[in-house]
């Protein structure tokens, strides 16, 4: 036994039916370290966390917390053992205040058995202040930003006196600024002796914040490395089991033919004076912080949201799209940022989701023709390398990367001239990301004009011909690919002097 470890998971195996989700996994967490768990979607990270959290019981293996063998049968067992888990999706009650959420189910009572709000509020205030958060604890959680809600989750988790904190992709919906804030808080937690298991797909974050990285692949343990002694290529290689030589694929081939031009597009209070143009074969990036108004600009161009003034030219002709149907007819396509909420009908099939926007092309004598539909669906499943058991499988059974490819396929099936991609690789694992980059590159090569909204700077820098940086609804900077770097983009995005 080694008292340096606050947590040891030994030989953990777990299968669901025929699927071996975890196969003899070993994992050790040192006291006060941030330890990343890295692997593609389906590698078994979530299952391992669920075993630790008492959601799944392992078939084999043992868990030691501070050298004591613990059996996690229930979620409560994990809480008692000092394990706190922050899930990707926020699980707070929106209509309750910050305090009420923190103390939900273990309220402090007065002698008369009513809730002692005064005491709870002051305790909640103390806890938020200790982490350096500036939140009024009496506000309803639903009115807070996603980032603030996530911080409330952290406060709630550590209010249980935890030793181990698991964070499952906490930054996936945060802006860079908010990510920095989160990292500061993690440093404070570390100083307090909390050990953190950190799950993220963003490589640069792992290097910024973790001490060690454990890599998993297909339910097996691949290895653990010191963060300072490794690099992205090595980690990616361990994750995918082969070396990805070309993570970003890009053959620059922008033509001089302008396809879409937007002039002085304005919607008061949302975005103002937006002007840009995109040419055949160009990938035009839109960078900026989350909430800067980039998605709103794209939805307005596409006819889904209103704008009060400004003009849109398509192939030199002035147009105004009444609604998205109109935009689609004119050769525009928009892949929305949130594939689960805005992109897919999760309960429906691959075939349904792929064909939804291009049903007109599948008609024969007024009715939808199954043969045509099958051919169309098969084409995109093959072209985009969508991995699914059957085209009749529900989309919810597919991995994030394959789901994203389906949204992309749905819009490619409309044969657009202009493709707007809003966060095309959010929540997608490394292998699928590389595939999506290569697909986007192929589309640009065929002459499609592409607008790519992205919060990931490496993605913008490695894929785009030009970038517009948006801050508070205005374009604050424009850079060509020769001028682009992280510092310049961040400078414009944050409005630094």
């Amino acid at each position, binding site marked *: 036994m080694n008292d340096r470890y606050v947590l040891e998971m030994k030989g953990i195996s777990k299968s669901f039916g025929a699927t071996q989700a975890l196969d003899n996994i070993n994992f050790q967490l040192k006291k006060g370290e941030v330890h990343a768990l890295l692997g593609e979607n389906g590698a078994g990270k979530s299952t391992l966390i669920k075993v630790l959290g008492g959601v799944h019981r392992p078939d084999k293996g043992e868990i030691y917390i501070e050298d004591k063998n613990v059996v996690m049968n229930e979620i409560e067992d994990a809480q008692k053992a000092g394990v706190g888990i922050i899930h990707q999706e926020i699980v707070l009650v929106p209509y309750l205040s910050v305090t009420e959420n923190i103390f939900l189910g273990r309220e402090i009572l007065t002698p008369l058995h009513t809730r002692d709000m005064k005491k709870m509020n002051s305790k909640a205030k103390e806890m938020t202040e200790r982490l350096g958060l500036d939140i009024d604890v009496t506000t309803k959680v639903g009115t807070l930003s996603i980032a603030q809600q996530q911080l409330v989750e952290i406060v709630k988790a550590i209010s249980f006196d935890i030793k181990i904190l698991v964070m499952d992709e906490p930054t996936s919906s945060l802006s860079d600024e908010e990510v920095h804030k989160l990292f500061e808080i993690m440093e404070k937690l570390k100083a307090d002796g909390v050990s953190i298991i950190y799950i993220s797909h963003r490589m640069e974050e792992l290097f910024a914040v973790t001490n060690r990285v454990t890599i998993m692949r297909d339910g097996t343990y691949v290895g653990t490395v010191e963060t300072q002694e490794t690099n992205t290529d090595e980690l990616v290689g361990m994750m995918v089991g082969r070396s990805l030589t070309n993570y970003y694929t890009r053959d620059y081939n922008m033509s001089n033919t302008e396809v879409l031009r937007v002039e002085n597009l304005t919607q008061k209070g949302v975005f103002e004076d937006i002007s840009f143009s995109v040419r055949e074969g160009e990938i035009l990036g839109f960078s900026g912080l989350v909430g800067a108004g980039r998605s709103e600009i794209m939805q307005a161009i596409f006819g889904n949201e209103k704008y009060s003034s400004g003009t849109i030219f398509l192939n030199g002709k002035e147009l105004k799209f009444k609604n998205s149907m109109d935009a689609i007819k004119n050769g525009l396509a928009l892949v929305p940022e949130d594939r689960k909420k805005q992109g897919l009908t*999760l309960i429906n099939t691959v075939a349904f989701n792929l064909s939804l926007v291009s049903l007109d092309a599948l008609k024969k004598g007024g009715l939808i023709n199954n043969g045509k539909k099958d051919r169309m669906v098969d084409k995109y499943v093959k072209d985009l390398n969508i991995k699914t058991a059957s085209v009749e499988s529900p989309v919810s059974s597919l991995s994030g990367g394959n789901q994203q490819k389906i949204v992309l396929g749905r819009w490619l099936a409309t044969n657009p001239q202009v493709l707007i991609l809003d966060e095309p690789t959010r929540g997608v694992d490394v292998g699928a990301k590389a595939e999506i980059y290569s697909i986007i590159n192929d589309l640009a090569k065929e002459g499609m004009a592409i607008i790519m909204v992205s919060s990931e700077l490496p993605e913008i820098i490695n894929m785009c011909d030009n970038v517009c940086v948006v801050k508070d609804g205005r374009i604050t900077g424009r850079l060509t690919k020769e001028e682009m770097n992280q510092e310049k983009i961040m400078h414009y995005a944050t409005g630094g002097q």
Partner: protein
Amino acid sequence: MSSNKVNIKSNSRTVALVKSNMGILLVMLLIGVVLTFLTPNFLTSSNIISVLRQISNNIFLAIGMTLVIILGGIDLSVGSIVAMSGTLTVGFIVTNHIPIGLAIIIGLLLGTLVGLFNGVIISVFKVPAFIVTLATMNIAKGVAYIYSGGRSTRITSEVYSMLGTGYLFGIIPLPVVYMIALIIIFSIILNKTKFGTYVYAVGGNRESARLSGVPIKKVEMLVFTISGFLAAFAGIILSSRMYSGQPKAGDGYEMDAIAACVLGGISMSGGTGSLSGTVIGAIVIGIISNGLNLIGVSSFWQLLVKGLIILIAIIIDSQKARISDTFAKRKKN
């Protein structure tokens, strides 16, 4: 999982149909077998035709309800529309001496209007369907009572009563013919038209449908209008079969239609389900009622027994995933 074999063609679509309705098909078979043993009259052609005629009215409503529930809504007003259209149509003919054809058209139109009204309020003002149709349920029923003064009106016109009591080729009751025709038409609409696909899209994820260029409001209005039309049609056929317009008719019919949908495996949260499921669901409800009649269970007890059987059937159906899982595991071992 990760193989790229993706060839589900039309013949295996039938297999998929049977598979997705497996639970309720088993329930239907079970009840059928039990009834065949309990009463010799169950499996006779005359009894089967009589069951089909009995369920036809529920199926008219259940078809509309299927569309509404897949859309993510509910329509509580259909039972009252049945009463309203039947009472008004008969009244127009008997009391107001309006020609039969015209009276039927007006009757259908008024029911359809109630449906359209539901659709407009729901889609434009974004009021939940449950509340809107709860209100129009009372309104439509109120119209029937006000117009008739609460009394039923007898109709002696042979042409009118033919509609509900006549036969095709002397053996198939006309309501059964309408039923089959409507099932075919709406299967095509749901599975083969853009509108049908859009119904699933709006019910499955409204926001995604909107961003994909689906005209959400039009789809919602059309679905509720169809539901109103089918209820008005059911009301006219029912009044014809009863030789009278009765404001009390159609009481609780909306619940039978919802029960057929739920038995047929349609999720109340919308986005999934099939018309074939609803039809099987309606048949199950039909043979339960018929069987209880044949065995001689009193009508008071029938309600209780019917409710219990529906509950058990739904529990069996909801466990089908687990059952087929267990079978799959056994096979492997």
